[in-house]
């Protein structure tokens, strides 16, 4: 679905259905509803870089008609009932940190901000689980658990500005996912309100039948509004062990990662930076030895500042040239971190180090990995100067099995090289494969050219990744951005997604226009 942005100075009028629903909603929520322009403006977008381009031009995506702030699950049920009666869309809204346009109100409707559902329960020390409400911010949740002596182990770079509900809806991954898993791995059960208004709670095992939780997780607001989840927690780690290693080539580094995971080792972090990424950051602003970038933000924290210093916007207009220059760099950096019980952590790290050395790695000591750990949330929320000068940046995270990882890497780089400057790191690894996280920087001559290039970049990059066997997303989700490729990936199986939609949201009120639904 293509979205036509509107002028931020003149918002479209509120729909009749929204006006009609507003009075009822106002009563049900004791006034916690807004039809104000500022609120509609604030809830019109997330962190999708394309929407950021529009903002730079004084435009915004079509805003919701209204915003509501429920305080508990019963109020969410009531919102769904009223929206159904008025046939008005509801757009679940966490913290708006999504990067694919998942919260855009493409058909108008009501943004449902769930952040007031923020309670976190006591950890059950026997089962090592905790129940938390879906609107809690990631960082608040983690601090609460730390105070009880536990960790969730979920550390997305956006932890300060994303919610549990958003994580569930987009199948989020944290930086330590290789040990603790993605959010779907740590969820024991969910509570949610379906588009029918029915409240579902998925029970813990043992239970019979398909796992409904796994059918709702990843639904990006199209099947349900999450209200709470029971999550697996872990005792706060006793010890951390760090190691940085240099490899002569990407292939060698990827092979080392593969061997680590195939050998059953479970580092919390295993991130391999491709050569130019490694080199760029060695020259970046951070003090101390070569600090790898996490390349974690969409509004680039590390790469863009480094590039602004070293490249002009004019050079960015010739990405092929920069990409060729990048080929001169060869060696790449692997950052490893283990955590957990003290003795086991030390032993695993020792074993991993030996295995990496056998695979051609050179030991750089602990420092590169310690640096990475220190800087792991150093995400800049400011637009970089180079962006002001007409460049734009985005990131693409896909995943593939080990046999395909290098092919995905090469094909995406080759496809994107004429359009954008590209770097990549490999992270979120499992026994069978890992995620590839590409960062792109490109520029256009004017607003129209930038948007055209942005679309071309994504089409090219994602098609190359998918044709090499990758899945369209590892942890950012689909939103509006990747719908075409999702449709391809689902093929005839999309029928099952449609069946889910009809059963959970028969009136199609939940986040319409997303996930191809």
């Amino acid at each position: 679905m293509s979205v036509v942005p509107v002028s931020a100075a003149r918002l479209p009028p509120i729909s009749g259905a929204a006006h009609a629903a507003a009075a009822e909603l106002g009563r049900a929520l004791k006034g916690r509803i807004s039809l104000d322009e500022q609120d509609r403006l604030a809830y019109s977008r997330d962190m999708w870089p394309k929407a950021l381009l529009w903002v730079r031009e004084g435009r915004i995506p079509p805003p919701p008609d209204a915003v509501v702030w429920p305080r508990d699950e019963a109020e969410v049920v009531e919102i769904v009932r009223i929206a159904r009666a008025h046939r008005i869309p509801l757009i679940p809204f966490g913290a708006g940190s999504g990067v694919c346009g998942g919260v855009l109100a493409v058909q108008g409707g009501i943004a449902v901000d769930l952040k007031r559902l923020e309670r976190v329960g006591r950890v059950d020390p026997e089962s090592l689980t905790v129940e938390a409400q879906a609107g809690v911010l990631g960082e608040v949740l983690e601090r609460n658990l730390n105070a009880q002596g536990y960790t969730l182990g979920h550390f997305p770079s956006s932890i300060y500005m994303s919610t549990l509900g958003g994580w569930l809806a987009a199948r989020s991954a944290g930086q330590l996912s290789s040990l603790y898993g993605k959010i779907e791995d740590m969820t024991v059960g969910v509570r949610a309100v379906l588009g029918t208004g029915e409240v579902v709670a998925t029970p813990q095992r043992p239970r019979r039948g398909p796992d409904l939780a796994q059918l709702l997780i990843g639904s990006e607001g199209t099947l349900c509004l999450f209200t709470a989840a029971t999550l697996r927690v872990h005792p706060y780690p006793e010890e951390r062990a760090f190691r940085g290693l240099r490899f002569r080539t990407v292939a060698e580094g990827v092979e080392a990662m593969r061997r680590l995971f195939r050998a059953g080792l479970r580092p919390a972090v295993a991130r391999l930076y491709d050569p130019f990424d490694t080199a760029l950051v060695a020259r970046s602003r951070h003090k101390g030895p070569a600090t790898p970038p996490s390349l974690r933000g969409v509004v680039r924290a590390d790469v863009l500042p480094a590039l602004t210093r070293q490249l002009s916007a004019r050079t960015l207009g010739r990405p092929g040239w920069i990409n060729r220059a990048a080929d001169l760099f060869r060696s790449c950096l692997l950052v490893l971190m283990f955590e957990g019980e003290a003795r086991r952590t030390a032993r695993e790290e020792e074993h991993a180090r030996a295995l990496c050395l056998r695979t051609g790695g050179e030991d750089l000591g602990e420092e590169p990995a310690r640096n990475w750990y220190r800087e792991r949330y150093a995400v800049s929320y400011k637009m970089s100067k180079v962006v002001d000068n007409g460049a734009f940046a985005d990131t693409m995270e896909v995943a593939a099995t080990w046999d395909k990882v290098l092919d995905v890497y090469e094909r995406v780089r080759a496809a994107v090289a004429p359009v954008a400057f590209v770097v990549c790191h490999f992270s979120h690894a499992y026994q069978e494969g890992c995620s590839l996280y590409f960062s792109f920087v490109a520029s256009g001559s004017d607003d129209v050219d930038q948007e055209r290039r942005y679309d071309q970049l994504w089409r090219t990059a994602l098609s190359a990744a998918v044709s090499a066997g990758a899945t369209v997303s590892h942890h950012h989700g689909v939103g509006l951005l990747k719908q075409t490729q999702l449709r391809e990936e689902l093929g005839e199986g999309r029928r099952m997604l449609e069946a889910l939609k009809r059963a959970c949201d028969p009136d199609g009120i939940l986040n319409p226009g997303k996930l191809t639904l």
Partner: protein
Amino acid sequence: MTDDLRDALQRLLVARFAAEADGTITLSPSHERELKAVLDLFREHRQPLPPNVRISRARMDGIGTIDPVAGTVEAGAGVPLARLEQELRQRDLSLGPLSPGMLALDLASFLEGPYAGLRVVPGGRLEALPLALTALMSDGLRFISRPSPRSAAGPDLDALFLGGEGRFGWITSATLRCFQRPRAERTAAYALSAPDAALSSLRTAVARGCWFRRVLLQPERDRVLLQAEVIGPPEGVERDLSSLAHEVFARGGRSQTPVPPAAAPALPEREVSWDELGRGLDEGRAATLYRIALDTVVVSGWTDGGLPLGGRGTPSDWANRDVLQAIAREADPLSVFGGAQ
């Protein structure tokens, strides 16, 4: 089933159509295309699969590509897991520590039945054995998921088929995740003062990453014996044994001489919660454990409690039954797979 449909099925399958004296009919298509043709016939005749018709996928038992790099294998729905495991071991791979009950099944029964295709990975998480599935949906179209270690491309639709008892579609093949063949196996035995101490040692060790093939728990008058069989690469086994010992000693346990493990007979298995396991031990029941996960364990030989894992379940017992049945109605409007019962 109408005579017309019966004739059509017989013409299609010839010798692979078997009618018993008691009225049971077994259809044994030998590949996916033939299974699709069977489903097409039921759909064309607008008839659901009647209870007396059994469709066996035993002939769809091919083992496809074994990829040692990704550690995956492609397998047909009818492959017996024991045979698959044998083949994999020759290629230095393994499905991991499966229980005798699991190994006695073919792939489709393991995935679609109460085991729901789950195995345990180091760290104690339950994970679906398939990386990707191919299944036939009720309209004869193919559901094919993409092999990827993880994905955020919408909901995990494979979940409809795992534990789905064939209500949403029939799995025809799958790409399965394999481990490296465990090169070492060691057995360690301990005595602890009480069931609580034994279970919390074990559970903590699992959370730390210990990977057990099997654990025996034997409550005695004033102590509980815990005997654990640890598998993995040699260094991993050493690490795991040391972690387990650490947990046991921290709870006042002592080492014992392990009893040589007996060959495991295929007894009925049940999935039970740790609480239930604890209650059983308190009552003096011994337990042989498999698939020891943080959520639950599989107990062999218990005849009550938890979730029985043998045979097939029915959707009327499902958790979240109403929603799942509503999905089944949407996915299979003609009720070819028996629809929503």
